[in-house]
């Protein structure tokens, strides 16, 4: 479904990502783990069109989406829950969700709103509240629900558990598992490597901008040489 090949992305003269590659198949939950500054967010940004890779290609469903504008990539079926959530704080929960569904037909949008209200009871309770008044855990759920409103074929999440209390981290991982059981395809960047490896079908390990290992969760958990990667988070 998603193929990333040889992607190098630079900030000025510094390569944040070197020759990175990964693939995600339909129905898979794939983790992307690694210490701070390893280039995980850069990789997601390069896929979602926020950053322009200097080299390499990104294809989605067989179409080249390298250097395509973010709104076009979303329309192709690839949604990103960005780092720090970036919900629209002065808009209500309902308005945030509507914007998430800006690309779908009005009738379908209404049905999706109901679906999200069922899937996220917390959001239903705060439907008309400005999103800026929500707690971190609620805001994270809103960010995920907002991305789901576009009916993505592939959902990407950047550090969904970052800054959340342990009980809410559990909630986020429960949610990832719930979405996986619905058959959704998900690519998640996480610092919480152990939890991620338990929840993912497969994972890639990034370090200093390069993919240094990949495999199933169990395979990677057994790799003692990657131990520093797992405790870094």
């Amino acid at each position, binding site marked *: 479904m998603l193929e990333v090949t040889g992607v190098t992305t630079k900030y000025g003269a510094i390569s944040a990502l070197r020759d990175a590659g990964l693939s995600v198949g339909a129905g898979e939950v794939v983790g992307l783990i690694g210490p701070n500054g390893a280039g995980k967010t850069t990789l997601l940004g390069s896929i*979602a069109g*926020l950053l322009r890779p200097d080299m390499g290609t990104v294809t989605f469903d067989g179409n080249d989406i390298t250097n395509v*504008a*973010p*709104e076009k990539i*979303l*329309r192709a079926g690839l*949604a*990103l829950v*960005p780092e*720090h959530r*970036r*919900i*629209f*704080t*002065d*808009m209500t929960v309902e*308005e945030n969700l*509507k*914007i*998430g569904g*800006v*690309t779908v037909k*009005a009738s379908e949008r209404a049905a999706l709103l109901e679906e999200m209200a069922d899937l996220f009871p917390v959001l239903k309770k705060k439907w008309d509240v400005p999103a*800026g008044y929500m707690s*971190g855990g609620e805001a994270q759920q809103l960010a995920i629900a*907002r*991305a789901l409103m*576009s009916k993505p074929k592939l959902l990407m999440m950047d550090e969904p558990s970052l*800054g959340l209390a342990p009980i809410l981290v559990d909630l986020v991982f429960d949610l990832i598992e719930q979405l996986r059981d619905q058959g959704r395809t998900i690519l998640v960047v996480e610092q919480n490597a152990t939890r991620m490896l338990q929840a993912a079908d497969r994972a890639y390990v990034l370090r200093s901008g390069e993919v240094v290992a990949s495999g199933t969760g169990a395979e990677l958990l057994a790799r003692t040489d990657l131990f520093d990667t797992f405790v870094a988070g």
Partner: protein
Amino acid sequence: MTQLLQNIIDGLGRGSIYALLALGVAVVFGIMHLLNFAHGELITIPGYLTYWAFNHGWNWWTVVPLILVSAVGSSLLIERIAFSRVRGAKDFTMLLTSFGVHFIVSALFLLYVSASVKSIQRPGWAADTVALGSLRIEIFDLLVIGVTIVTLLATTWLLQRTMFGLSLRAAASDFEAARLMGVNSDSVIRGAFALSGFLAGIAGIFWLMRAGSVTPTAGIDPMLKGVLAALIGGLGSLRGAVVGGLVLGLAEVLLRAWLPEGIQNLTTGFVFVLIALLFIFKPGGLLAVPQVERV
């Protein structure tokens, strides 16, 4: 007391026009951080078309739609020719670009039309008044206030209830995040300029009716009022822009009424002193946009 009420209505009449101008400035600023010093051209250009139209036998009934269409068209055209090239540039670069647009438009009218004042006939009822108890209210003021209220209600509906309005607000809040949701950056920016132009067009109708003339630099005064009102209200806040416009209109009229005879010509200077005082105590303006900490 009667005099005060009279002044307040007069001030609200003026302030309504300023509010529409400021709202147009704020809509564009919100979405691309451009403080548009060429906003007044959206009155100058329709102004010259109005002058041309009256010389060709048009009347106010047909000129009003002409002003609205040409204001929206000019706004979109200026965006296409100038501002689309500096999208995402530093705020200062965009500010200078807008100055450039202002000077080029003025120069074009100076070169190809005339430096002299071109008059536009005022509508016959412009100076008529109605008596309300002991008050004598200009029909013009009542009309301006009424039309402004309707325009603001319609704009509120647009921003709250339509997908275009939601997209505009989302893009103003976090442009990149809005694009990640699929909001098309081109259409939302063009939409903002169209809305800004429409609001300037409504303001322009009344501005031209009251001024009764147009010159190559006619845009400076409405631009200053709009930008100042947006600053007073708190740049980036749409509600603030409206409040800022009304406050500026009231301040002008009340100062002119209260200042001792002899220094009434210094009204504008005193308005700036008040604005300076405001910024000392509330640097962000009356309804400053709170900077949300992103964690």
